[in-house]
């Protein structure tokens, strides 16, 4: 399923925060985890994750540190900060409200046809 660009952009921050709340991780693993959790429905353009991570770091929601991969390569790890957990809670509340509002309206396919035609 193709998810619109705006929605991808808007959901990137809470999704990254949610995945990091499971524990420290790094870019490639985060992308794999998003793919897994969405059952293969969500795929990001891989590179775009990094500016998002850097912005979160800049805002103090995550903390980055250089470590090593299992093969000894330089790898940058990210973990959630206190402020990041708070932000995640906050975002979850907001998304729940949006979600509930969206699904509380009775869905009828006939309503999609504009009236008067």
């Amino acid at each position, binding site marked *: 399923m193709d998810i619109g660009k705006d929605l991808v952009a808007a959901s990137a921050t809470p999704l990254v925060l949610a995945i990091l709340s499971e524990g420290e991780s790094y870019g*490639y693993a985060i992308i794999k985890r998003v793919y897994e959790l969405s059952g293969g429905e969500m795929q990001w353009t891989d590179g775009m994750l*990094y500016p998002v991570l850097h912005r979160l770091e800049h805002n103090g929601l995550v903390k980055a540190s250089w470590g090593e991969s299992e093969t000894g390569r330089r790898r940058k790890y990210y973990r959630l900060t206190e402020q990041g957990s708070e932000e995640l809670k906050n975002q979850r509340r907001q998304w729940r409200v949006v979600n509930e509002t969206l699904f509380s309206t009775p869905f009828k396919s006939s309503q999609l046809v504009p009236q008067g035609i």
Partner: protein
Amino acid sequence: MLDERIGEWRAYVRRRQAIAATDVDELEDHLRSKVADLQKAGLDEEEAFLIGVKRLGELDTLSREFAREHSERLWKRLMVADAETGGTGWGREALVALALAVAAAVAIKVPELFGLTIEDGGPATESFYVRNFSLFVLPFLAGFFAWKRGMDPAGLMRLAASFVIGALAINLIPFAPLGHTELLASLHLPLALWLAVGIGYAGGAWRSHDQRMNYVRFSGEWFIYLALIAMGGGVLMGSTVFVFSAIGMDAEWILNNWILPCGVMGAIVIAGWLAEAKQSVIENMAPVLTLLFTPLFTLLLLAFLGTMVLTGSGINVEREVLIGFDLILVVVVGLLLYAISARDPQAEPGFFDVLQLVLVVCALLVDAMALWAILARITEFGFSPNRVAALGENVILVVNLGWSAVLYARFLRRRAGFAALERWQTAYLPVYAVWAWIVVVVFPLVFRFQ
């Protein structure tokens, strides 16, 4: 094979200003993980690499995203740290430059141990500092370049010899204290030594025209950095006086004895290091100023010539008027030199080249008129050292500009390439050096040290 491809990819991505080296490291880790996974799934290395790169996204879009997050990176920064150390800590070069700057600052205070205090010194002390100040700092700057370029012993000897000869000449010649020949020698020694620093800058390869042109570029940038540091120094000194006067203390002696002399010496070395360190990082400033001022100076000279023709007023021949016209020629040679230094030699003649020729021709006309007026009365004034020096400099500059005008005209009519003009300027540099040494060494003898 994969390492090679990734190396190429790194170099390609690295060209994007918004994506820093550490970001490329991070992206490389991602790319390698992806390639490994794809290979596990059965793809060959080549395919896995191509898909991995594609999945990272289009580079333009990616670099725009990075730029949005790191907008400060679009302002090229002069990095104090070496690129290899990953942006932390000071590079070795910076430390050497700093040490040499401190050494120069200390050196200028050493004579004080022998009773030569800068302030309240008699004429003999004053004359000592006027003669020697360049010898306290330029050897350190030359040393910096000798160290950086790893000069061979023969080159080092030649470099050291220039400074030793300069030091001996300026101190052994029995000048009349603060007389004309002493002042002239003191003014020309720094110029002679500055060109000697060029030997160090070129790593001994001072015959190379490319190296000479690089030294010209360096000199322009060095001067601009020095002017900027001087402005900062002025603020520092003003603040020093102000805060101490606020508590009723006079800080002026600290300024004159310490901050000013030591600061100038240190700043000369630091400006040299900055100009060297940033040459590839930031656009050169001297050519930009040239672009700005060439039209304005052309306008000035045209207006001057026009006014002279319309009003019929001749040049008012004062005794030292020649010095003023020398300075105008120096400015024009400078504008020419820096315009040449920044020009792509392969480019076709353009409007700016025509403007440059007009500027040179105007300068020659103005100077010819000044010379005409002065030569008519030079017998009346007599040949003092100052006048001979001014006249000699005028001749040197006129020869340079005259031949430059010829070469420019040929270039504009496509009879010759631009390289000839560039070569003429770099080939001419030793003439300035020879003249400077003549004023330092020969003038005192000819004019009996007056």
